[in-house]
């Protein structure tokens, strides 16, 4: 769902911390027709110009709180990512992205369900790695975007 619209097209920018560029970020919407309990958000497959950035270097910003790692989000079992709201995906990358256009591949992983599934126990032990389609909710393809770095 919303394949062409999961990333806001004017949202890609580098992230500066203490005067140094430490990574990049972009705005995303949920690939579903409903929001989700935040604990179920399991990260992204993020590919920029052919380089894959794993979940371990990603953080997610929502509900006016500082960006949180996906390990932290696991404990947010009573917090909601509302359907209407945009979240920001932060990716650590020393020096950030170069100015100009970037080719970004994205698959979002949200482990929401319609009831008990055969994969439940396995996913408690080891959640799926985003990008393989499992746990990708309503959009199980990798969606591609050509985005201009804003700043």
């Amino acid at each position, binding site marked *: 769902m919303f394949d062409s619209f999961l990333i806001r097209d004017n949202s890609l920018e580098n992230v500066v911390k203490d005067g140094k560029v430490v990574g990049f970020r972009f705005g995303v919407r949920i690939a579903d027709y409903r929001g989700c*309990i935040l604990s179920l958000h399991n990260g992204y497959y993020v590919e920029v110009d052919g380089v894959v950035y794993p979940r371990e270097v990603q953080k997610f910003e929502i509900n006016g709180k500082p960006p949180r790692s996906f390990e932290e989000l696991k404990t947010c079992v009573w917090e909601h990512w509302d359907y209407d709201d945009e979240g920001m995906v932060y990716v650590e990358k020393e020096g950030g992205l170069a100015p100009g256009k970037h080719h970004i591949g994205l698959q979002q992983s949200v482990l929401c369900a319609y009831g*008990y*599934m055969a994969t439940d126990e396995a996913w408690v032990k080891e959640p799926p790695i985003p990008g393989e389609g499992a746990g990708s909710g309503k959009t199980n393809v990798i969606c591609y975007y050509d985005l201009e770095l804003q700043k």
Partner: protein
Amino acid sequence: MIKRGVSLYSYQQEQFFKRMNLRDMVKEVHDNLKTDGIEIIDQAMIHQYPFPSDDFIAEFRDLMDEFNMKAVTIDVYLDTLQFRDHVMTHKEGAERLIRDIKLAAKLGFANVRCLCAVPIDIIEMALPTAEEYGVKIGKEIHAPFNIKPDVGDKYSLRASGMPRNPRMCDEVIELADKKNTKFVGLVPDMGIFQYRLNEPNFAYLVRHGANPDALRMINRLAGAGIRHADIAREALLANGFSEADAKIAGQIGSFSEVDPKDLKDIVPYIVSIHGKFYEMTEVPGRPGEYEDVSIDYRNPIYWLKQGGYDGYINSEFEGQRHKQDRGMDYMANEVEEVRRHHEMLARYIAE
């Protein structure tokens, strides 16, 4: 008389792009569809579910009052991995349903829709709360579930791996009879009367590499009663399709196999109905009249009337998602689709 309503799910794309808010949707139902039934998805509409502010609840109730709307059904879910460190127990699942029932009551809803895959003991645990708060629990009959018990192993697991209980409806009916209660029942989805791949999905699959002839063969196999992906796959290969073409065999598991007449028998247990549809096109030779060519509506509505059903059919438009890979210019017009659906519903109800 059967009543018409709308699940605001139908306007999910307008909401996503912030072209319509809750008020706009309710106003559309009132002003242009000239009816009063409202259904919502809890996690799409309720800010900071499951703990909305008192202001949100008051505003929602005021909006319903302003337009003389009936809050018919709220659709609730069961995210079994919510706690992440363990699979939700049935007791925790019942606690979620109980919380949802109380929230439904606060918002003024008559019913909660719970999902096909919610175990019956969770519903039984929540039933006293439903009775106390005056909110009915309706279990959805979504494709590929059937009304009458069937041979379960004929159906393949869908790509999603969703388990399918062939006795689902009977379990609900038995519980309602055992407890002698009106507070548990069924929410049939008209998608159970879908008999071929819907056009938006067909076109989406082709754009993403499927062979249209293989999809047509899936339609023919489905018409012949095949529901098992392995059988469909073998049939495709035997007819000269490649392994790659046969990858779409799993689509065969998405159809129900329901005689429209079966609806008549379950009318006393029907809480409300989902009017699932994908694309309304003009009936050939009948300007201004519309139909979804993949779903039978006429016969099911006939049998609902025979059974004396006087509840709501709430439009549930789902054709938008299969057009969202093509950019803004090709997207579905949700408002127009729902208006056409109501033209059809009104016509069949009056027939």
